[in-house]
């Protein structure tokens, strides 16, 4: 008589198991989400850094730049685009698409998206991705790159909301001006 389980014991056991399994699945799901989110952030951070470094390289080695200010007396220009003519004549334009929240790179008319989640939103304030500083009207002295990027929202969980905004800044002088 004492060797088996009663129905009540089985029901209690199943109930406990269900609770445990539910918790387990929830934990696994959360950890998978966290992993995915962290991975996304990591990849995003890495991609963004590489992109900023790529833009900095283009500025360092560029031959001419745009856009130019509307007047030669204006020395600073905030812009959603950055135009670079490379030493071999390639036309490269980096464009922030505010609708799709992407950064796009146009190379000699061929455009591709190079970074997503570029909201340029910092605590509710919209910032320009590029600050161009000129001397004497047309001579570019410095470009400051200022990106606000968030990881893909699909990886966000209800618990932690949207991912933290990643801020990437770099300030670069064209070497043709430096030397």
């Amino acid at each position: 008589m004492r060797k088996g389980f009663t129905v009540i014991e089985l029901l209690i056991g199943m109930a406990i198991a269900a609770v445990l399994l539910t918790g387990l699945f929830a934990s696994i799901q959360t950890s998978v989400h966290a992993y995915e989110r962290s991975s996304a952030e990591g990849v995003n951070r890495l991609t963004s850094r590489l992109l900023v470094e790529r833009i900095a390289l283009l500025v360092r080695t560029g031959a001419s730049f745009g856009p130019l200010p509307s007047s030669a007396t204006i020395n600073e220009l905030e812009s959603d685009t950055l135009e670079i003519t490379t030493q071999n004549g390639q036309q490269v334009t980096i464009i922030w698409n505010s609708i799709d929240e992407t950064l796009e790179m146009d190379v000699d008319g061929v455009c591709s998206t190079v970074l997503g989640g570029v909201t340029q939103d910092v605590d509710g304030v919209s910032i320009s991705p590029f600050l161009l500083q000129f001397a004497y009207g047309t001579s570019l002295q410095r470009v400051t790159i200022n990106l606000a990027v968030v990881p893909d929202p699909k990886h966000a969980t209800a618990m932690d909301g949207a991912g933290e905004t990643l801020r990437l800044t770099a300030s670069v002088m064209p070497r043709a001006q430096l030397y």
Partner: protein
Amino acid sequence: MKHAHTRSGWATVPALLMLTVIASITAGMASVSYTNVRSAQAMIGIAMAQSAAESGLSFGSIRLLHEVNRFVIDRGVIDSDLAEKLWKGTWTSADGNITVSPPLGYIVSAPTGSGVVYCLKDVFAQVDSHSIEVTTGDALLPRLSSSDSVLNVKPIPIDANEETYFRLQFGLIEHSTRILITSVGYHNGITRTISMEFDLDKRIDYALVAMSRVMLGRNVHVEGPIGTRFGTDIGELNANFGVPLVMHSDFAGIDPVVLDGDIAAFAAAILAYDVDGDNRLRPSHPTESAALGGALIDYDGDQYVTEMDLFLSRYDIDGDIRVVYDSAQASSAGHSGMTEEFTQDMQLANLIDTAKSDRNMDGVMDSVDTELGWNDGIIDVRDRYAKIDGSVGFAVGITDWESASGGSWQEDVRGSIVPDFASSASQFQLPNDRLAELTTSMFADSQTWFETESLTGMAFGDLASGQVQSNMVTGSGTYIPAGQSGWEGVPYEANGAYDWYERSVYKDMSFNNVRIPVGTNAVFDNCMFVGVTWVETTEDVDDPNWNFAGSMEPDGLGGYSEQFAGLTAETNGVSYASTRELSNNVRFHDCTFLGSIAADVPSEFTHWRNKIQVTGASRFFLDQDDPDVAAQSDGVVLQAILQSIDPQDREQMARSSVLMPGWSVEIGAFQNDESVGVKLTGTIVSGLLDLRGVVDVHGAILSTYHPVEGEGALFYGGEADAFNTTLGYFGPEDGDEEGINDGMKTFSGYGRVSLRANPDAPMPDGVPWPITIVPDGSTYKEGT
């Protein structure tokens, strides 16, 4: 016991499950963190390697510059052949005089070769002690390639742990004058490679180099450094006029009531507090700001208090921090409805407003430059006023100067000096390799081409032959014999003329590669000279009487008579009562030179006899693409003629528009008439040069005459400081006997003289000067 064992088994299941969950979360987090850390480390590594590479490029370029600067050559232009010889040390005497100065600040005990690349190798091998060996092969460095073209040196660390370092490679680019520096930065296995080309070049960065005293008057602006070796001979420095440089304020004398008082107060403050010798005071500087306040404020907000601030605050009536001097000009520049605030000296206003014409440095003068303040009828901070936009350099020491003059050197030198970034405004005791002693004999080789070229044209001739006859036949030319033109003083229109000539006149003629015969002593009026114009003279003029024999002066009765009757001078064993017919004292009025003017070199400076004067609206052009040519009313014609000149000839002539070492060259007139002006381009070589009136020079001025008391023109007395390289107007009160003092002036103004250095202009052969490297930022490259 059995019951308790059963319960313990149940608890294991959730515990294991929890452990699994925690472990998986931990593993995931660790993995992500590790990835993040690695990616961050990689980024830091990239940045470190990039920084190391850039440090290497800077270090390498400075090391290359120091070594290249040791090479002093007298050839004017470095071509690829000479560059290779300089690099490898394979030059011969056929390449001119090449000397290698000892290194400054270090000793190479065992030089391995004489070329630039060997100097580099030696300094890395024998002097630098901070290199490391990362791989076994590094022990063999520095090493030259078999062709001696490429040098690799040992790695140099930039941190104490030697984790970050750079490797440098220097290579002469084949068949060029360029050196490629490649710098590879390393950090923990990450490498970044950058490279840039540097051009081997010989250039005089000075706008003016003189062996004599230099005088820069009111309304004179210089864009570029100036230097003088005056004062190094015993007795040259004195308390009278014997100082290396006299520079007048542009603003003193305009308003004796208010502005002169402010300028005096400012001058006193400069003497007391200007610590860097630039005649400017910085409001943010603890010492220089001590006397500021009141009228001495930074009115235009450029972080300096200068005489310009005093001027602006004096004349800015409406308080908009700008002074309008030409409302029509301002209106055409887009500033309509403005009222003129300054009309006292339009030449000065125009000089300031038209300075630094290519303000955005894009190679053209256009509406953008006007937008940046150029020629807009307004004087303001955008004009970036400077009396000298560069440094001033002296061979003498500051103590020698001040002890001889009895006061501060800045009492003699007024007006703001704005040096290049990282340069000192005023530099003293410059050695010969930074401010070379110039002599007439240096240019002997450089004149060969000009003389040969001048011989390719028809003879100068006369009414019956040669180029003069050709002009008469076509009906365009007019000739007036000497007896019919009247007498004129030398210098032309000078208050203190020292000789008088009755000149023949050649009017409205064109000459092509012509030699003006010795003794012509004429006026060329509205003539055009294409190619080389060679002025002949006697070269052996060592006789101290040469300057004076045959001189004339008014006799007080309406006629002219000999000044020194009975005085004779000798050359080549023959004695002459007058040296006029054996010399050449020529005046060019309203003439156009599409080429260069050069001359035989007299052995002594004889300014009464061997002199050219360029007056009226005379012009010198050589480059058909020069925007100034296009701006001329006959620009299309000039461009066509310039285009017809053989490019190789043009390249030679570009080295010097005036190549007259040992001659007295006077450009401009004493009357300072705004309606006429002279334009010159290229290097101007003369014994002494005077620029007066309205003159614009785009090039460099090299004055070779070093006056020595008791010799040459000073044989019969006088002091060395009487012979000056003069830009602008001066009178006797400044030691210039040719002009009149300020208080007596009746002329139309002070004129305006603009001297703009052109460091890219090729140089004539002959001047021993250190070579340099010019970085080409457009060749900066990242990656291999």
